[in-house]
């Protein structure tokens, strides 16, 4: 029995942290997928894209949504990030362990931590670019995509990867559905969103010169 462990034990912090990780994660996946569907409206027409953006502006949805998502993302970063081994020796153990085990879900978790870090940096740059280039219209997006398509390609892949596997892992942990089908479903949705994102990117880059 250790004094510091005994006195700090048996509270509900660990439960709350787990629930906040779950709730913030679900919110962010919901946001990301909605965001990508909104972006994909460019596939229908430029008017639809602009119309949707104006609608979100008119009812202040962008002005509430963006700061809210930033706060949720920061919470998620700190709380889900508590799982990441921070000591060098722990890092060595985990990497050796993953290489030894050659186990898919262990590797996807290693990449989950890496993509999480990448998103923190890349999404911050993305938000900065969008907010300083406000409002969001077909021409502002097309310009961004034309100049920074490689940046957005990376962000799209790491973002969708993190969201897809994150959702899968939460379902696995809480056991609401069997593991194999839920893995399949999250992969299919991720693939659809990726295709939509890539298609929208392609259209924007095409538009880039025309606008």
């Amino acid at each position, binding site marked *: 029995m250790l004094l510091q462990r005994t006195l700090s034990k048996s509270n509900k912090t*660990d439960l709350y*942290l787990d629930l906040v990780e779950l709730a913030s994660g679900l919110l962010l996946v919901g946001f990301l997928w909605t965001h990508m569907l909104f972006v994909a409206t460019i596939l229908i027409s430029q008017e639809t894209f602009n119309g949707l953006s104006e609608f979100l502006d008119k009812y202040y949805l962008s002005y509430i949504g963006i700061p809210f998502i930033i706060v949720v993302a920061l919470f998620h970063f700190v709380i889900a990030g508590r799982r990441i081994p921070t000591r060098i020796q722990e890092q060595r153990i985990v990497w050796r362990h993953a290489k*030894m085990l*050659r186990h898919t*879900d262990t590797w996807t*978790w290693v990449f989950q931590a890496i993509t999480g870090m990448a998103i923190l940096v890349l999404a911050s740059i993305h938000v900065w670019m969008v907010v300083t280039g406000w409002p969001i219209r077909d021409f502002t997006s097309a310009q961004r995509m034309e100049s920074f398509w490689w940046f957005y390609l990376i962000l799209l892949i790491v973002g969708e990867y993190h969201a897809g596997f994150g959702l899968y892992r939460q379902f696995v942990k*809480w*056991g609401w559905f069997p593991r194999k089908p839920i893995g399949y479903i999250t992969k299919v949705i991720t693939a659809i969103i990726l295709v939509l994102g890539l298609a929208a990117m392609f259209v924007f880059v095409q538009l880039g010169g025309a606008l």
Partner: protein
Amino acid sequence: MADRELTFEIFRYNPQKPEVKPYLQTYKLKETTGMTIFVALNQIREEQDPSLMFDFVCRAAICGSCAMVINGRPRLACKTLTKTLPARIKLFPLPVFKLIGDLSVDTGTWFRHMSLKTEAWVHTSKTFDPKAQEERMDNETALKIYEAERCIECGCCIAGCATANIRDEFLGAAGINRVARFMLDPRDERTPAEYFEVVGSEEGAFGCMGLMACDDNCPMELPLQMQLAFVRRKMASIGIGYKPGKGIKLA
């Protein structure tokens, strides 16, 4: 297949002789029909190197003593046929557990600690009456308990768990499965709050990151994902309504 010559690379280290650093030793062996890693190791020890340390008792996947890392995966030596492996086979002792020497580890101390921590016995206020008829239990409950009881305590789930590899206090799938077994048992009179004290923390249900190496590597194919999720859901629903006692301030 039976004509293959197998090359074993085996981890050698004796904590009693720390001056000899850990190294890999190579042994060659002719494969025979139906050969398991257990058979191969015994043959190596008998014919080539009597100093090689490894554990076994039952050679029938019941005792759980012969678990080791076989080509990167935690497996039972007695249940792993060499024909399922390439000709080069690498053997390591299980991580997490105390190393006795070479492939032999002490899982007993870990499991005893886990049993004490989870208080793995039926908590009842009833006094046992040897003359009374045994209380009946419906078949469904009995089968559910039996499913969890099939654990042979080999330690493969713990060795495969990334969390258990870096967090000493984590109970792992074996520990959480044990708690699930008592939660299912109607004879156990522990209150929800008492269970929460045992596993409602990062040392228990909330320490699991969902990597499922336990589920994928259990030699007994226990439904560990569902057991972990069951305890996690249960702990969440208990925990939300649970009021812990006031803490003591240090200053």
